[in-house]
């Protein structure tokens, strides 16, 4: 166990090295390299996706136990890689049109992904922190990538300052936990907390740690940055923010709470229940008054994280399986929705108002159909994918006796359905505006079609995904 094996970390090492190689090519070739750079990074992400299951052999430790790979990590890493690759492909056309294309963009996305994979595989409080910081630092830069506009710079700065604050809280919490348990290793923490005797210092440490993690998944009351950052950041970056980093942060959240802090479940459950309820309610109510579609999607993502946290509050294997299924179904929905937002372009300029969608069914029937599918799915209407996500989340909550949580969840999803369906109503029943530019771009339409078909026909065979999620969840519970 103390040996310095590197095999389980092979995908991360591969990505980090290839990132440096590509960076060198970019530096020497200049901005001319940006055309092939995106595809080179996407290809590396795909190779990493192939390597991920190879590297994991059951539960294996690397770097003397700081790094762990198991079925749970494999599942989450595949999702994060998929999200990053899709966001990157979507970004190509957009960046060229908006004149912000630079070869560093794909490189930063690549390093953010490396950070996410490190977060997912963290087996130590310090490893958790460095992975998180690597990912966040890339995201701060990406948020401010369109540096000539005030909005984007503001988004980057706001994200950076609040992110630094949350990192501080996380570290403070981690130091408290270290002070109580005398180790930062997750295995050691599990061992120590088995005793069940939990001190006040540990509880405060957990509260701070949860605050830091909740910021990263943008759960209420640490959500303030989300709408501003989504609105200000370039749209493909916002799509990236809404997909891969959320998944990685959620994976980290689940691993920390279940594995090392599982012994203190009674202490943290009430915190998670509160965060979950507050996120669901705020996601449902605050989104109603939004007029900008990116802000609306930001509130929607806050709500979705609230639902996912229900599974964590349940704290059971079924609950974790619910989270995994939820995130796996959330990823294509949110990527597809952002692909639609990127298709909202009039005379070469982006429009972001919800009203701009009026009558899109007549001017852009394909896009309107896809967006309608995503909206119905997000609202949780059967038989679309989003319904199954909510189903697998609410069932374990009921089994765990969290009736209040489940009832509030169902009620808030009814409220949220209002603004999702309003978009459908706008597109199908209102008088058309001037149509959007066509064609929307080859990459965008492919992604849109693929995600819409997945969301629509997931119910045909949910078993493979649910089965894999169940296996991944059982890995976390010492299976």
């Amino acid at each position, binding site marked *: 166990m103390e040996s310095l094996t590197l095999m389980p*970390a092979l995908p991360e090492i591969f990505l980090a090295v290839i990132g440096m190689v590509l960076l060198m090519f970019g530096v020497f070739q200049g901005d001319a390299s940006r055309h092939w750079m995106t595809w080179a990074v996407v290809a590396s992400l795909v190779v990493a996706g192939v390597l991920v299951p190879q590297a994991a052999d059951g539960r294996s430790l690397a770097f003397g136990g*700081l790094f762990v790979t198991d079925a749970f990590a494999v599942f989450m890493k595949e999702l994060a890689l998929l999200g990053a690759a899709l966001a990157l492909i979507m970004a190509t056309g957009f960046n060229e049109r908006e004149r912000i294309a630079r070869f560093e963009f794909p490189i930063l996305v690549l*390093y953010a992904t490396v950070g996410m994979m490190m977060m997912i595989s963290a087996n130590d409080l310090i490893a958790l922190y*460095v992975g998180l910081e690597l990912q966040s630092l890339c995201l701060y830069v990406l948020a401010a990538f369109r540096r000539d506009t005030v909005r984007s710079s503001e988004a980057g700065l706001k994200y950076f300052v609040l992110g630094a604050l949350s990192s501080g809280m996380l570290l403070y919490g981690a130091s*408290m936990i270290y002070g*109580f348990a005398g180790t930062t*290793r997750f295995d050691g923490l599990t061992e*120590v907390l088995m005793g069940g*005797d939990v001190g006040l210092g540990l509880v405060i440490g957990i509260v701070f740690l949860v605050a830091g993690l909740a910021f990263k998944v943008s759960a209420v009351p640490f959500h303030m940055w989300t709408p501003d950052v989504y609105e200000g950041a370039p749209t493909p970056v916002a799509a990236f923010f809404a997909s891969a980093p959320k998944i990685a942060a959620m994976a980290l959240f689940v691993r920390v709470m279940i594995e090392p802090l599982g012994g203190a479940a009674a202490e943290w459950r009430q915190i998670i229940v509160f965060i979950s309820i507050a996120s669901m309610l705020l996601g449902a109510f605050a989104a109603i008054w939004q007029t900008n579609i990116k802000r609306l999607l930001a509130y929607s993502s806050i709500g979705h994280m609230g639902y996912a946290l229900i599974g964590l509050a349940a704290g059971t294997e079924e609950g974790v399986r619910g989270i995994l299924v939820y995130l796996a179904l959330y990823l294509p929905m949110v990527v597809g929705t952002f692909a639609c937002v990127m298709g909202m372009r009039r005379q070469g300029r982006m429009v972001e108002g919800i009203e701009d969608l009026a009558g899109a069914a007549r001017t852009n029937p394909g896009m309107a159909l896809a967006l309608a599918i995503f909206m119905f799915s997000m609202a949780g209407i059967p038989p679309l994918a989003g319904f199954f996500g909510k189903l697998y989340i609410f069932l374990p909550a009921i089994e765990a006796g969290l009736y209040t949580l489940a009832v509030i969840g169902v009620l808030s999803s009814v409220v949220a359905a209002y603004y999702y369906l309003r978009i459908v109503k706008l597109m199908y029943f209102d008088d058309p505006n001037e149509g959007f530019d066509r064609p929307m771009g080859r990459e965008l339409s492919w992604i849109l079609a693929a995600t819409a078909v997945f969301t629509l026909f997931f119910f045909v065979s949910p078993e493979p995904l649910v089965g894999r999620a169940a296996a991944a969840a059982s890995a976390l519970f010492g299976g």
Partner: protein
Amino acid sequence: MIIQALAFYLFAAVAVASGVMVVSARNPVHSVLFLILAFFNAAALFVLMGAEFLAMVLVIVYVGAVAVLFLFVVMMLDINFVALRQGFQQYLPVGALVGLVLVAELVLVFGAWAVAPGAEAVGTDPIPVAGEITNAHALGLVLYTKYAYLFQVAGLILLVAMIGAIVLTHRQRDGVKKQRIAAQLDRRREDSLEVVKVRSGEGI
């Protein structure tokens, strides 16, 4: 022993006093200078505790880099510090209240601090006996072996920070003249020099 205690009180008192001066000095440059003084005293306190490596790092990193950077920023940027300080009085009661609550909580926490019963057993990194090897040696022994992963990731983070700084600040401007050495060396006398015979009294 008494000399050590005296030294401790001296350094601690100067550190606290300069800390107060950092926030209360009117001139921001004086603030930064007091900050440097506070760093030096904190480094001295580390030396007293036998943590000479931390003391070294504090002086090199904080005094050598961070404080000098602060000084640069304070001198280069045209920030109106008087305007920044406005509202200080106004926010003082609320700030003091929050601070008081935090202090009370900290006292509560550390007063009832408990260490988990199994903590001794899982603590994996034995602290070397003082005097046997130096701090830097002891840190090096674990930093490049057990914690090589963290060390490498920290390197990656620094790389990303560098890329980020370049992406956000470097821009290509038109009309900037660059030295092209090859072109300079290629110039020959015939390209640039013409010998003209000028007769006297006629001009060119």
